[in-house]
Each structure stands twice: as structure tokens, then as C-alpha cells.
């Protein structure tokens, strides 16, 4: 115990120098903690966005595009009675949508949009709307022809509630068709891509326009347990045949998650590179301390300190630096991840302008970091172990000095 006390006091002998070599430990641990919080948060955010956007599983026409605004209207399919009862039995809830990419015209301006034609009864069950911000109201399926538009479309075409827009489509048969619709509401769903280019129309309005009655481009389903999605998809493919393809929240996000893993690896790499620098710094610092205290080491050896005791003393000194630096780094890294875990971080701001999103990237506007107290403990332990290992070499060197030479050394 006295040896630990000694190591602690020795740490304060060269405060400035030791603080400097702790800086890179602080940074290393900070990067590892914050990077992990961000990367893991991003993964979960992608999953959440995908599920909010498409449910646990989707059934689409075979070879249907994965991302983007291209929604081939000539590839619709029709579910048979037996398909429907299979879906009833094997999902918690499911809904059919017809997604198309018409032109939305207001006055002289127009833009391509993603139009989601939805079932007013089942759609809100599969896609809970409690996180949506809705200005105005959803169209009344029984009332006049209505449409809700996303904030992005409203901004782009300068449309406000109560105004009339024209939707120009290609029908499922390949002909051109158009219709006037009243804007009843403006929505913000938190799904980045939809919020930029999406509009929603009830099936009762859209089907006559698209000539899509009874047809489907997307079946979205929620399961009791999202982890069963992959096996569900296999069964669905067997039951529904090969005109369609079953996708899951996992399979659609695969490439993104791979990218996320790369990101995590990159953060770890930077973190460990910083820790390696820290290790070199600590080794150097401890080596300097050992050379400054040659006579002191000799004295303690004369008093009966073993070689192991000398090693322990210097390794403890390095370990302290690892512990203090690690705790500071983990504190700030933890604070950051904890804060963004509670409040989320605005992805729009993070990714630059909202308008730069060119692909259908499933992320929600708010990214919640993953906060893990146990990982804080792990990262501090890593810092301590690295610091101890780094000081081992100078510590062993110090322990190998001949006591006789050491006690005669000039101070």
C-alpha cells in the first residue's frame, strides 16, 4: 500500500509532464466512447427509420428498386385470397400500399414526388403516427379529393393548406392521367427522404387515378417480434411465389449497416492509434522518471525493495496516468453520448443541407446515440491496461539497475 502511495505522490512530482502525456489517453478514450455511441446509435437509427418507413417486412414485386424515387407502376401485383389469409395469420398487422412517382404541379411549378396511396384503416396501425407532426388534417376518404404533402414538397412548390394541386400520373395500364387534389395537411414524419419528396393520398382517391384497384406495390407488415423477420421472409417467399420478393428491416439495411461497421472500425482505429501514441508518451515519461530517480531506486533497493517492487512502483505510476486520463476521457465521452442519447442530435444539421439527400437513405432526423455505462468501464480499463503495459518496459529497466551503482548516482 505504501508503494502505491509512493507511486501516487511521485505522479505529482512532474505534474505538467504527466498531464501532457495523459492528454492523448483522454483523447483516445473520448474518441472510442463517443465514436461507439455514435456508430451504434446510427445503426439503431437506421433500423428504426427503416421500420418506421416500411415496417418489419415488405413484400414488393421481384427486382423492385431498393432506394430512390423510381416506382415502376407497371409492376403491381394482386394478392390472392389465400395470400391474404396467410398474411392475416402470420403477421401482427399488415397493410397494402401503391407507391408511384407522379408529377405534382402547382401553377407553373412542378416536381416529381413519391406518392403513397394508403389504406386509411390499416396503414396507421402498421405506421404509428404519434411521432408525426401534422399541420391541418389527413384527407377524409369519404370527402372531396384530398392529399397531404410533406414539408419538403410544401417548401419546394410553395404550397399551403387549402390550396389545389394537380397530380399527373401514368396509370397501371401505361396511359397518362391527371387529377386536381386539395391539400388538407402538411406532414413531417421524421423519415428524411419522405419528408423531402413524399405525398400521401387515400386509396379511394388514388386507385381511380392510377387504375390500381385491387393491386399492390408494397405490403408492409409488423410482426410480434422483429427478430423473426428473416425466417418470416423465407416462409413468405415460399407461400407467395416468385413474382414477389420479401424483404426485411435487416436485409434492406444490410449495406448501410456494413457501412456503419466500417465507421465503427474507423473510430476504433483512431481511438487505438491515439492510445498507442499515449502508450509511447507514457513509456517515455516513466523512463524519464526512472532516470531522474536512479539514486532513489538504489536507496529503496538497499532498504529491501525487490525488483518486483520497483516494477510495481513504476507500473503503478503509469497505471495512475491511464486511470486518470481514462476517467477524464470516459467522463467527457460519456457526457456527450449521454446527452445525445437523451436529446438526439439533428441529422439534418449534421449532414449539411437537407436538400443534399439524393438517395432514399433510411435515417430519421434525430439520431440518438447509444449510451452504455458498462462500455465506459471497459474503456477506462483498456486505458489502464495500455498504460501499465507501456510503463512495463521502463519499469523493468529501472528494476535491473545495480543497487551499488544506483546509490552512488548523482541526484
Amino acid at each position: 500500500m505504501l508503494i502505491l502511495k509512493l507511486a501516487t505522490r511521485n505522479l505529482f512530482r512532474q505534474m505538467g509532464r504527466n498531464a501532457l502525456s495523459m492528454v492523448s489517453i483522454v483523447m483516445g478514450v473520448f474518441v472510442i466512447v463517443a465514436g461507439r455511441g455514435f456508430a451504434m446509435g446510427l445503426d439503431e437509427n437506421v433500423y428504426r427509420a427503416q421500420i418506421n418507413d416500411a415496417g418489419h417486412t415488405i413484400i414488393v414485386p421481384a427486382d423492385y428498386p431498393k432506394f430512390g424515387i423510381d416506382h415502376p407502376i407497371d409492376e403491381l401485383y394482386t394478392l390472392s385470397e389465400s395470400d391474404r389469409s396467410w398474411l392475416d395469420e402470420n403477421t401482427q398487422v399488415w397493410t397494402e400500399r401503391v407507391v408511384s412517382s407522379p408529377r405534382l404541379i402547382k401553377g407553373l411549378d412542378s416536381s416529381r414526388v413519391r406518392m403513397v396511396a394508403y389504406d386509411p384503416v390499416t396503414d396507421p396501425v402498421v405506421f404509428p403516427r404519434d411521432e408525426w407532426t401534422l399541420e391541418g388534417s389527413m384527407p377524409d376518404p369519404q370527402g372531396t379529393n384530398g392529399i397531404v404533402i410533406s414539408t419538403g414538397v410544401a417548401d419546394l412548390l410553395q404550397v399551403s393548406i387549402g390550396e389545389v394541386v394537380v397530380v399527373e400520373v401514368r396509370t397501371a395500364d401505361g396511359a397518362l392521367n391527371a387529377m386536381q387534389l386539395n391539400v388538407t395537411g402538411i406532414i413531417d414524419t421524421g423519415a428524411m427522404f419522405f419528408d423531402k419528396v413524399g405525398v400521401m393520398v387515400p386509396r379511394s382517391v388514388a386507385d381511380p387515378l392510377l387504375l390500381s384497384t385491387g393491386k399492390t406495390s408494397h405490403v408492409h407488415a409488423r410482426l410480434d417480434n422483429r427478430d423473426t423477420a428473416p425466417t418470416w421472409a423465407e416462409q413468405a417467399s415460399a407461400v407467395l411465389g416468385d413474382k414477389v420478393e420479401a424483404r426485411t428491416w435487416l436485409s434492406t439495411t444490410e449495406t448501410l449497416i456494413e457501412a456503419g461497421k466500417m465507421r465503427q472500425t474507423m473510430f476504433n482505429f483512431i481511438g487505438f492509434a491515439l492510445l498507442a501514441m499515449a502508450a509511447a508518451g507514457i513509456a517515455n515519461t516513466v523512463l524519464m522518471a526512472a532516470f531522474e530517480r536512479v539514486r532513489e531506486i538504489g536507496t529503496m533497493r538497499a532498504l529491501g525493495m525487490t525488483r518486483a517492487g520497483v516494477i510495481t512502483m513504476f507500473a503503478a505510476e503509469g497505471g495512475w496516468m491511464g486511470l486518470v486520463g481514462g476517467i477524464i476521457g470516459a467522463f467527457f465521452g460519456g457526457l456527450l453520448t449521454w446527452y445525445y442519447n437523451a436529446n438526439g442530435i439533428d441529422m439534418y444539421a449534421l449532414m449539411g443541407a437537407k436538400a443534399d439527400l439524393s438517395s432514399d437513405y433510411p435515417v430519421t432526423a434525430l439520431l440518438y446515440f447509444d449510451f452504455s455505462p458498462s462500455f465506459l468501464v471497459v474503456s477506462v480499463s483498456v486505458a489502464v491496461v495500455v498504460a501499465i503495459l507501456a510503463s512495463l518496459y521502463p519499469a523493468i529497466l529501472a528494476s535491473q539497475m545495480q543497487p551499488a551503482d544506483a546509490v552512488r548516482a548523482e541526484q
Partner: protein
Amino acid sequence: MAICELENASRHYGSGPTLVKALDDFSVTFQPGEFTVLSGPSGSGKTTALNLIGLLDNPTSGVVKIDGQSTAGLSSRALTEIRGHKIGFIFQSFNLVPVLSALENVELALHLSGLDEGVTRELAAESLAEVGLGDLLDRRPNQLSGGQQQRVAIARALVKKPKLLIADEPTANLDSKTGNQVLDLMARLNQEHDATFLFSTHDPMVMERARRVVKILDGRLVEDEKRGA
């Protein structure tokens, strides 16, 4: 039985033309309770001899016996063990640990000889009281005068009740008055503790105080003079 014996001990440094025979075929025996000075001019081999006796260094040839036991071939750990239990050191420049208080410096010696924390504090305080520093326990070395530091060092060497105390020029860094006080203290402790004191000096004043003077020149023993107490 002798407390310490050098049998034909030599310590050579370097080789060939740079060979230095710091100690050359040196034999001497010390009995329990002695108060002996090792004297000789600078470079004569005093420190070398004391380092061999204190097991801080190994002889090039010859044998060092402590308490009747040969130390030849012992491991570093075994030598450390003997140092920790049987030998106390006092150095010319005191060599206190600067970050530890007077009390902690003394406790450190007890701690290193394997004693439990519970008892070290009391023993260390007693030992410091014995050298007249009972009220300076919490001072750091840089808050003590040279004489006071050397007294802490003496307390540190004595506290584990070693059989042999080795002091290499203990008064060389002190003025003659303080040096004399330190010698008085060592002489008193020699009587009270029945410990063997072995110290080096080239100061004739200091030699006066010893009951036996071993003279060394160029690494060889040239005179061994016992005096009546």
C-alpha cells in the same frame, strides 16, 4: 560468531589496460557490537568495500559472509531479503525519499522488511523520537536541515533493528558540529541497541571516535587497529 566477514574479497572494474582493482584480496572480520571506521583517502575503495558488505554489489572473487552465512551464489531476491532484515544503510547524502514525510521514510523501511501497516506507524514514530525528531514526524526532507535529515536516515536504518549498520561517510555533508552530534547519536545507539556500526570516513576527527580503525589503500588492507573503549 562474526557478524560479517570478507574472505579474500576482490572487486575489479573493467578489464585489460583499464582494469581497476577497487578492492584487492581484502579480508576482514567484524564482531557483534563493534563501532568501526573504515578509513582511507579518496578512491582507496571504502565505498566498494561497504557495498560488498551491504550486499549491494557482488565480489569479482572471494566470499562475503553475513551472520556466518556465505552469500555467494544467492539470487537477487535472497540478497534483497537479507538486506531488508539484517542490514541498515546510512548514506553520505542522506538519500531520503523526497515525496515521503520523515515518518513515512522510516515506515518505508519497515514496510520493505515485510511488516504490516498497522504496526509500522508506531515503531517509526518511536524510532524518530529516539533520534530526537519526535515532533517533526510530518516534515518532508526538504523541510529539514542536513543534520535532521541524517537523523531521519539513522532512524530509518535502525528501526528494523538490523544486526549491521553501514554508513558511507555519514558526516561528510555536515558541518563539524552537526557531524559530531550525529556521531554522538550513533555511538549512543551502538551501546543501546547492541548493533554493529561500520562507517567510512577520511576525516581524522571522525576516526578518533571509533574503537577500531581499518585502514585501506588502493583496495588493500594496510592497518587494523583496535583501541580500548
